[in-house]
């Protein structure tokens, strides 16, 4: 059971990572990256590393995602005007 879940989680993680790089739309890529970060949080808790899970959620997915989204906001704003 644990093995199957881990395998599935690992595959989901790799899939989200792949989509992050391969998606043509940069906005979706960033969203996928945040998804990747949340999946990674799960992985950390599976690995009995709750400290990292917390940090990953807050910093890895949260702050980095916000930074990237903001950067895209600038990108889009410029393109429109």
């Amino acid at each position, binding site marked *: 059971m*644990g*093995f199957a879940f*881990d*395998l599935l989680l*690992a595959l989901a*993680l*790799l899939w989200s*990572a*792949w989509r*992050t*790089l391969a998606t043509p739309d*940069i906005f979706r*890529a*960033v969203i996928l*990256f945040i998804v*990747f970060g949340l999946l*990674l949080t799960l*992985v*950390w808790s*599976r*690995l*009995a*590393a709750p*400290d*990292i899970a917390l*940090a*990953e959620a807050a*910093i*890895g997915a949260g*702050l*980095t995602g916000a*930074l*990237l989204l903001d*950067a*895209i906001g*600038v*990108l889009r704003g*410029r393109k429109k005007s």
Partner: protein
Amino acid sequence: MTSGLIFACAGVVLFAMGTAGVVLLDHLLRRILAFNLMGSGAFLVLIGLAQRDGMPDPVPQAMVLTGIVVAVAATALALALARRLFALTGGYGLPQSEAKDGND
């Protein structure tokens, strides 16, 4: 196969993907994303391999915490540079041949 080893293997793939991404992609934001994937891959290998016997190991966990903070610092720095470059040139790519037309 323990979860540690599974995720370590996933980490290797992630690292390879991320590295290829940093090398191949043109869009700066994507390269930054790829760099983050690369770092996450290395962290996974570190913890996964160390905990391949299933026992938690606080030492690599602390190292990864350090690594995550370093990675976010690098990401912020890269974004700051990329955004500034975007403000100056209007593009999120690196000019192909620079240093030829000295403009500084």
